[in-house]
């Protein structure tokens, strides 16, 4: 048993990481599906999209051969419409609400249709928005993730000059560094960021980290307003013995490496345990398997009833051959010569409902042990609590607290996205960016 990289051939990697939501291969296929859409009024799908894309309208526009119009309908509500069409957990959003579900029929493939229209826009670089002449107003945005870029695009459309400060060397945030490689490719993320910034009036300065080589005071001084879209930080510690053994890694770092270094350079164990049952845990487990791990076991403290991931995501893990052990809480990672040998888990049972309304797991006192050589921790992420304290921004366990105008407790400093909600989806961050921009325009008196 060992943790090694380069387990598979190039072809195998490519096959394993092939797009999980493949595009329609041709116009006919897209139009057949588009024609199934009933063109609902006050459509449930639109209401269930956090950015409120006018779904029936953009689908209808595919059937009328007005693909430019269709892409515009999508982007006007969601400038990450292309990325969202690949990464949104649609089964709990638009497609989950499609009226076809009520007929016990497959819902309209909204995401794939959205991908059809937006891919054409990106391929042909259709610039569908005209930026208003510069107002001379300047806004600083920290974080080039979905929240920051969405905010930037709305501001730029209105003639505001935007500068984005990003700590990494690439834009896109977790879209680029977090999301599973079988949903988006690095090239796609780069193209999407370029497409968004092509409107003009948006400059991204890379390798600029707030709290390190960048200060909030300077931003406040040099800009008319500041927007913080910095997302959430590193994985939560498990606080169990053995966590520092070689072979215990955090899911975000593991996924970051897959996206950053390429498949063959990411080492993975023979037998891998993944702790947690959120989207990140699923992504870590499925990608460990796809990198060539022989056995992947997911352990979760509660049951399927309480799991944070969707049924659809769980099925991806199951189809990939990941084992799932419910009601198992990690107790200790055991090692030999500093390397992981096994994971000891407590057997849990469900007790009374907790604050979140979910029945909380209680230790039965029994334990079992899993032979593993790698443990991936995906038990949740932690917001930047230290940084918030340093910047004197009111927060709840690191999550920034904002008012109904997206403003923090510091005047002229706005925030949104994962940094505020603690970690939701790309589409939520995009919506936050939009409302943040509207609030800033109001604050600047240019709306």
């Amino acid at each position, binding site marked *: 048993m060992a943790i090694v990289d380069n387990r598979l051939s190039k072809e195998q990697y490519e096959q394993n990481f092939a797009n999980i939501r493949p595009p329609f291969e041709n116009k006919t296929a897209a139009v057949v599906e588009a024609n199934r859409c009933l*063109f*609902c009024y006050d459509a449930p799908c639109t209401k269930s999209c956090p950015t409120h894309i006018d779904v029936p309208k953009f689908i209808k526009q595919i059937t009328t051969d007005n693909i430019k119009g269709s892409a515009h309908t999508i982007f006007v509500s969601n400038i990450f419409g292309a990325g969202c069409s690949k990464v949104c957990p649609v089964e709990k959003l638009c497609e989950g609400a499609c009226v076809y579900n009520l007929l016990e029929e497959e819902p309209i493939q909204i995401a794939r249709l959205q991908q059809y229209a937006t891919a054409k826009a990106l391929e042909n670089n259709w610039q569908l928005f005209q930026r208003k002449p510069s107002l001379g107003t300047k806004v600083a945005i920290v974080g080039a993730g979905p929240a920051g870029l969405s905010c930037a695009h709305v501001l730029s459309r209105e003639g505001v000059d935007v500068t984005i400060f990003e700590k990494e060397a690439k834009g896109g945030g977790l879209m680029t560094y977090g999301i599973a490689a079988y949903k988006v490719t690095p090239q796609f993320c780069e193209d999407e960021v370029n497409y968004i910034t092509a409107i003009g009036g948006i400059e991204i300065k890379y390798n600029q980290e707030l709290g390190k080589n960048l200060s909030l005071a300077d931003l406040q001084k040099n800009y008319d307003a500041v927007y913080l879209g910095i997302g959430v930080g590193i994985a939560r510690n498990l606080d169990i013995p053995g966590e520092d053994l070689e072979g215990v890694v955090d899911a975000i770092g593991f996924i970051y490496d897959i996206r950053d270094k390429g498949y063959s350079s990411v080492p993975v164990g023979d037998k891998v345990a993944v702790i947690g049952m959120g989207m990140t845990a699923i992504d870590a487990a499925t990608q460990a398997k796809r990198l060539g791990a022989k056995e992947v076991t997911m352990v979760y403290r509660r049951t399927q009833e309480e799991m944070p991931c969707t049924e659809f995501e769980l099925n991806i893990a199951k189809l990939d051959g990941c084992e799932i052990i419910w009601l198992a809480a990690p107790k200790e990672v055991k090692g030999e010569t500093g390397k992981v040998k096994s994971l000891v888990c407590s057997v849990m049972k469900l007790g009374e409902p907790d604050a979140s309304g979910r029945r909380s797991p209680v230790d039965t006192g029994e334990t079992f042990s899993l032979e593993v050589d790698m443990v991936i921790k995906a038990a949740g992420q932690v917001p930047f609590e230290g940084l918030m304290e340093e910047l004197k921004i009111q927060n709840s366990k690191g999550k920034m607290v904002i008012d109904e105008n997206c403003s923090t407790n510091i005047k002229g400093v706005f925030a949104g996205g994962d940094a505020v909600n603690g970690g939701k989806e790309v589409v939520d961050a995009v919506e936050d960016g939009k409302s943040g921009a509207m609030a800033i325009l109001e604050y600047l008196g240019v709306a």
Partner: protein
Amino acid sequence: MANISSSFLGIKSPNPYWLASAPPTDKIYNVKRALDAGWGGVVWKTLGSQIKNVSSRYSAVDYNGTKVMGLNNIELISDRPLHLNLQEIREIVKEYPDRAMIVSLMADNNRESWHELIKQTEDTGAHGIELNFGCPHGMTERGMGATVGQDPEIACTVVEWVMEAATIPVITKLTPNVHSVVPTGRSVVKAGSNGLSLINTIQSVTGVDLDTLVPNPYVAGKSVFGGYCGPAVKPIALKMLTTIAQDDVTNKVPISGIGGISTWKDAVEFLLLGASNVQVCTAVMKHGFRIIDDLCEGLNNWMDEKGFKTLNDFIGKSVPTLTHWEDLDINYHHIAKINQDKCIHCGLCYIACEDAAHQSINLEYGKPYNTYTVKVEECVGCNLCKLLCPVDNCITMEEHRVAPEYLNWTEFQKRGLPLNDH
């Protein structure tokens, strides 16, 4: 099992389905395939003087992803040599004695030509003749086809010539490119035509190509008006059929119904409105001869369900129900009802009634599903919502008579009853 065999002017066929005069009936090869597949008979592609066709020839109207809701063509009569057609017809008549063989004719516009063509046709042993007075393109410019059918007097003259020579039944096929098919229909019946058939194709432009800016079908940068047929024309054909079935001159002869028939249900509707049999073209051009199976089986099952033993039990049965507006019962009223268990909350009924009817549907906001209910006092019973609802039987119309007795418009006015009830 019901008996679906048919007799039209004494011409027998095992079912009431004939193939209309068109490409599917233009040579022995197709016609054999058709009769082997089970078609009751054929009306052979129109014969006349030798002509030449152009390329391309067809165009279509698609609707919401469904191909060929309507078909348009600029073809002329048969472009194959007359003697070859006649020889093939003779062979078929011999080989398939239980099927109907009607030959469609369009001779040059003089007595001798008609007499000669009829003689040659009868020599083949064919059972009947159909006069093509309907073709709306190409032949009209030569004073034939629709030119004849559009003018009752010319039509009368030609039928008189025909009847001088014909010894087998003669059916006159009417053109729909007139304000009413009745005048020509009367005229040819008076001149001796033994039966009528309708409709031929309707003049049309199916669309314009948005790249070349030339209408379809395209012929070297130009186009012409073409004849429209297929499912799109069925409602027009049914209306024209009914006027022929209601007129007391034309309803004395049997009618062969044509125009947009694709399913057994369409066929039943034609029979109910007075056709004794039906002819099909576009549906076969779209799907091939194999559709005959369901055309027969569906008809048979329906007749069994309704207790009809033969076609004559229901031919023309719906004709008297098409009346004049003044005779409708104003006291009849029905109101839409939404079955909340079936409703999928698509809102289509709401937006249609709100924007285009009578603002009679209430929207109660919900996330993500709104609740829609009918405002009983407001609903005029127009049917719009029911027509649009995507769920089978979700919206039903419930009878709420204004008063028990029959009351028509004339009587209503006489009594000076109030007008603006909505």
